């Protein structure tokens, strides 16, 4: 997805400065993310250059938060925005190359599950 073409600047959603807006105003009215299959716990990290990118409001905040990896759920809680809204914004940031997905193992190995069990017991 990093080789996706840069979308036309004019296609970015416009943001309203009024904090009281309908949530999907933040996404330009779109409720479907560009990236399907992004799980609620998938770890996202910002590209180094993203902080100096001309991003505003939620996009900017997400890029700041993702200096360390965060999930959609973490971002939703931090921004106090519904998951569906965050999912759409994150989808745009992924397409634009400002965020990337931390690669996860396709399937959890038995040894990893054993590690989870042992760590849970040790909590």
């Amino acid at each position: 997805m990093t080789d996706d073409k840069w979308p036309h600047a004019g296609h970015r959603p416009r943001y309203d400065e009024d904090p009281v807006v309908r949530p999907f105003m933040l996404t330009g009215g779109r409720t479907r993310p560009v990236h399907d299959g992004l799980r609620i716990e998938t770890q996202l990290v910002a590209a180094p250059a993203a902080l100096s990118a001309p991003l505003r409001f939620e996009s900017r905040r997400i890029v700041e938060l993702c200096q360390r990896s965060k999930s959609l759920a973490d971002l939703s809680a931090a921004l106090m925005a519904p998951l569906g809204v965050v999912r759409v914004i994150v989808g745009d940031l992924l397409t634009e190359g400002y965020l990337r997905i931390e690669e996860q193992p396709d399937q959890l190995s038995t040894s990893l599950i054993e590690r989870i069990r042992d760590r849970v017991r040790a909590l």
Partner: protein
Amino acid sequence: MSALSDTAAPPIAVKIVISGGFGVGKTTFVGAISEIEPLVTEAELTERSIGVDDTSAVSGKTTTTVALDFGRITLDDTLLLYLFGTPGQDRFAFLWDDLVDGALGAVVLVDTRRVEDSFPAIDYFEENEIPFIVAVNRFDGGQRFGLAEVRDALGVDATVPIVECDARQRESVKDVLAALTEEVLTRRLGASGPGAVARREQGPTSPASRRHP
């Protein structure tokens, strides 16, 4: 906070789903062990109550906000465990696929006073072949049923573990999560081992035998 460093291997995020009827203790369960405030919202939002605390005063309110219980536990430097509570109300069932996709497994919380409230969750996990265990949340003053009685009432396969828990107690919640990972391991080994066929022949209890009220 965690010691995740920029140079460390990327963290692996694992997810467990906490399910059960409305008011069975999912929020309490997640909150007992999470290191963060357990709340995220998902919404079918058509309107938002603006600057009004008492939403009952808003006439014609069309907002539908779903609060999802959400917890995070840093297991070690490169391992994060997320807990997600499924919304208890049936009308939010459309969110389930999204929550459950890729989950390690599920915990079905049961209140013995309202056993039937957990039927939709059990049906869902059986149909989708998600490893799950049943955790009977012991409420103070509630009538106690034996775990065998609970199993009968739920109509779950004899191979599905049923444990007791107190969703308010961190140690108890921890034990439930450990029991679930144990069940995931058991199923994994069983599925590839010689016992797999025997297990399958025993089969899950047909959902038809679970009479929905």
